[in-house]
């Protein structure tokens, strides 16, 4: 099996999983926020919903920065010590 570095630095399955999870969460939470705020724009629920959108958007951006700009997979050191975990399966094409 050859090891390929995917899309910048994403080498491990765990990172791929996080990337995908965050993207899905953004979509989901934007939809939720729109729904919640339709009822009452000034409610606490509305502002919390958009705050969650901000949180996951920033987390996604941080991950993207690490992979595409710094070209590092942050699971690298974790996976050196725990290569057998599901997260540390190497992603190859």
């Amino acid at each position: 099996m050859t090891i390929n570095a995917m899309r910048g630095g994403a080498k491990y399955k765990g990172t791929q999983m996080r990337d995908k999870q965050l993207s899905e969460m953004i979509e989901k939470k934007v939809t939720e926020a729109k729904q919640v705020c339709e009822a009452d724009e000034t409610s606490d629920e509305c502002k919390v919903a958009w705050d969650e959108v901000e949180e996951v958007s920033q987390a996604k951006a941080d991950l993207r920065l690490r992979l595409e700009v710094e070209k590092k997979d942050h699971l690298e050191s974790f996976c050196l010590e725990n290569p057998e975990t599901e997260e540390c399966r190497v992603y190859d094409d």
Partner: protein
Amino acid sequence: MAVCPVYTTQSLNSTCSISTPSKTHFSSHHNHLVFYRTSKRTSKRGGSSSCVITCSAGDSQTVVIGLAADSGCGKSTFMRRLTSVFGGAAEPPKGGNPDSNTLISDMTTVICLDDYHSLDRTGRKEKGVTALDPRANDFDLMYEQVKALKSGIAVDKPIYNHVSGLLDPPELIKPPKILVIEGLHPMFDERVRDLLDFSIYLDISNEVKFAWKIQRDMAERGHSLESIKASIEARKPDFDAFIDPQKQYADAVIEVLPTQLIPDDNEGKVLRVRLIMKEGVEHFSPVYLFDEGSTISWIPCGRKLTCSYPGIKFSYGPDTYFGHEVSVLEMDGQFDRLDELIYVESHLSNLSTKFYGEVTQQMLKHADFPGSNNGTGLFQTIVGLKIRDLYEQITASKTAAPLQATKA
């Protein structure tokens, strides 16, 4: 013979232990003795109650920097520039939780204040509070731990996992030479504020914030101009109530505004950046242009330097900010070429550089970072050098002062 200051400490979970300070804090010349004293055992309640006296050498005091920013933690450009000034790249702790927000380099440890959330994502949803709200944060713990680290004691710091939205088991943080606490509330709690040796507030105007978030989010499925705008608007009341007021406490504020050089510019690409520096701060001498304390307006582009549109405009002068005396250095426009940068550097004073051209060199080292061609990169780099200078002054004054034993 050096005599150590003596402290009594109690560890956080009330069973006392002798903390072993990290090696970096003891020079080979200092011997340290640890005295362990137990009080009388109260057999009725079971278990001994004992106090630990930790002896640390006088130069083990950590310098603490606070950075208030609304752009996530530890990966921000400012942090990367700052850690670069001290040398080495900052990386997450090796072998620990891969979702840790902490960054560690040789000299610095950067802690994300989100780790002090008292409510996780579910908890905040239930209580109806945003992460901006002080009710979502444990300031007592923040204070205890920053205080401990500052005194040379390692702590077990919680981890807030931004992916799962949960609070993960703690990670051990050893006291570094420079501790940076970054996040939404570094200056919110007065006790924490008093621990800071220097504090910075990154003040992004609404228009620029909108432009940056568009760049950040537009590629994501689910986002649109409307959702990006709605998110900023919904967070604004809490931001204005809880985060913005901290800027009055900052020693330096970096204010980022749209340019005034291009009429009706709404792209947010060219920026006007103001470095607002408090006067009278110990170990910090503000940067100035030409003549300290006077008011200057300067366009470097002309006969000696050709710049492309829209050019560069500087201004400098004294002002007041929330009742404090400040000096403000402002840059509007963009650097296009290396020689523009070095030309500007050569006309600024009090930069705390160690050699001519150090600012330019630092900027070039990170030419791919955002803001490398405008005031954000320039002023972040300068603040980084100022922090280095502050650190060296504090450290020098500590080793010079005689160490005295204090009563436990």
